């Protein structure tokens, strides 16, 4: 093998090794950091899987904040509310500051895990825009609505 070829071979081998290492790292990191979105019904019916209902898996809970469900003790940060998808409701507890656009009757996506039948949220997101429902929540809610023959709210535009 002439030196040019040998150098190329080494280069290709190094590239392959780097690619393999990168792929492994990426797969590993993705697997650990992906959070699935479930609705209360999927969590409570067990459709989301055992790991979710037992509290082993961190996931995102999507739905609407049920009207009239928001409670908070005077002078304390701890808030409790229910998230609903029309079929089922799930109690959520959160002990940090809620986002500006958090409101009853609005869409919300909370990240956290189940603990003794209650969803303990680490992070709550409401959308920047009051007319905007997160697409992934809208998709899932759309399914629930279709089952209940509820007329869908038109998919509103953001930035209004």
């Amino acid at each position, binding site marked *: 093998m002439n030196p040019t070829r040998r150098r190329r071979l080494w280069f290709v081998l190094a590239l392959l090794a780097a690619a393999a290492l990168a792929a492994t790292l990426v797969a590993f990191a993705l697997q650990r950091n992906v959070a699935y*979105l479930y609705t209360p019904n999927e969590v409570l019916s067990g459709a989301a899987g055992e790991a979710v209902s037992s509290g082993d898996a961190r996931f995102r809970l999507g739905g609407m904040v049920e009207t009239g469900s928001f409670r908070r003790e005077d002078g304390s*940060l701890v808030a409790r509310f229910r998230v609903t998808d029309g079929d089922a409701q799930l109690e959520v507890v959160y002990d940090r*500051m809620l986002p500006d656009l958090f409101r009853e009757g609005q869409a919300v996506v909370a990240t956290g895990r189940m603990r003794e039948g209650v969803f303990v949220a680490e992070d709550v997101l409401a*959308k920047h825009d009051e007319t*905007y429902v997160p697409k*992934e929540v809208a998709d899932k809610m759309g399914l629930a609505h279709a089952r209940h023959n509820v007329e869908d709210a038109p998919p509103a535009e*953001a*930035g*209004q």
Partner: protein
Amino acid sequence: MLPELGQAALLLALVAALLQALLPLAGAAGGRASWMAVARPAAYAQLALLLFAYAVLTLAFVQQDFSVKYVADNSNSLLPMVYRFTAVWGAHEGSMLLWVLMLAVWNAAVALWSRRLPEVVMARVLGVIGLVAIGFLSFLAFTSNPFLRLLPAPLEGHDLNPLLQDPGMIVHPPMLYVGYIGFVVPFAFAIAALLEGQVDARWLRWARPWTNVAWGFLTLGIMLGSWWAYYELGWGGWWFWDPVENASFMPWLAGAALIHSQAATEKRGSFGGWTLLLAIATFSLSLLGAFLVRSGVLTSVHSFAADPGRGLFILAFLAAVIGGALALYVLRAPGLPQGRPFAAASRETLLLVNNLLLTAACAMVLLGTLYPLLADALALGKVSVGPPYFGTLFIVLMAPLVLLVPLGPLTRWQQEQASRPLALLLPWLGLALALGAVGYFMAPQGPLKTAVGVSAALWVGLGTARFAWSRLRASGRAFTPEMLGMVLGHAGIAVFLVGALLVEAQHVQREVAMSPGDSARIGRYEFRLEGVERVQGPNYVADRGLVQVFRDDRPLALLHPEKRAYASGGQIMTDAGIHAGVFADAFAALGEPLGNGAWAVRLQVKPFVRWIWAGALLMALGGFVTATDRRFRRVSANSPAPRAGARGGTD
């Protein structure tokens, strides 16, 4: 009447773009000088027409012409004057108009400053930019017309999204767009080179400053966005790995790689094909960014209009541009001349590794950003990829790059004795590690991150200074603006590392319930809520907190965090109170009232957070300074780089 004229201007600009694309490209292929001569006037005409359209829309906002739907949707009579100007790009249609205006500015600039290029090359470069302009102008005119009428006109408009009613927003989008769309120039150059079938060092020398300027603006845009998110969203974070942030970060990474590979290709003729591919990739990622932001396919905290028709249009455009460019590349790239051979220990190798790492980081971000889309399409469920994925992998990929940065400038082209630059830098490495160890023992928390941050920043900073010193000392060798730009850019990395790593290691955040008179302590800082008062703004009512901050028990600042309720639509907005300091920021944001006069308050101490943006500023400055090098403006081809088709490859 005026809005109709604005719309007519848009359509005429589209016609001008058609002329600019078709005639010069056909003329270049057939050697017709008169057809090629159309390119420049068409470019100027486009700029004039779009300036007019933009002025019309601005005027509609200033005069509160609610018969224009876009104006009625994005402003109301209470909107302060300055935000009437910025509201023009506050939503989808107007920001698209700004986008095509920026494209027209680059276009006209290329037309103006391309006199040194051979006529055929100029015609092709402008023709390709014209093709891109056709895509964006028809997107604007046919799916996102900002001049649509709303009849009968409403008496009052909605409002500009309160998040955008902020000084940071005045400059963030224009800067970002200038950067994004600026990558059209290296892209057009790459396509022209492929059409020509050769990479000429002279053209590369001509293309380099454009890439540097576009990248500099993109850096500024991203920096301003990060700064805005820091004080306006009330979370106190500076980077969220949000899909829209990623959309701007991917072309930034690819652009950073492109700057380096262009330098190697221009000076040594190395990686000519790779440079062209990278130019195509960088612009494609800019387009992908536009698609991700505007189609609403991704769930993001930013999210623009979610309109599948628009998404489809951009997707088709994206496919045409990327597909066409790559097909051309596959056809033509194998015929490109090879550069001069280089040894394993050489600056070429280091630049190659730089490119490898930056593109790998870019691919990693791309994968993480698109993974939710893929998973959804493959029915794997609705997922999101968490920041730890990006953070971990980014650090893994960038750590070796940080190690190599100081070596690059000190290493010779073609062949280098590896021990020489290492010996030059060894004392500085020792110093960086020693001070890192000091940081380890002095840090109140996060000692390991602090040590790594201090060492990495000093290593890059001292190593770069070492290069600058040796250059300045060596008499007879000029210290060119190109070198100065590189030194500034690398120094920017050092400053950025101080900010990013130390703020991650040292920042403290507390969310507490506070009643007036309550205090909370964070390290040396103490925050006391004095009270909350109601204030009236021009178009909002706010609860304004008075938070007295003490450092080491001495009064430091009085912060005024606000919770604003906007008159129109009742949107709630947080405006954080921040005491900015060179070494630390004290940050307070109001949450919601908790009853009994108590408020949820978010308190943070952010050491060195300003250094993040200072570093980015330095990097941008580096890009601009490099572009001023007079070498790039030389007419003749008396450079050491190989001429077109020159022999002297590896085989």
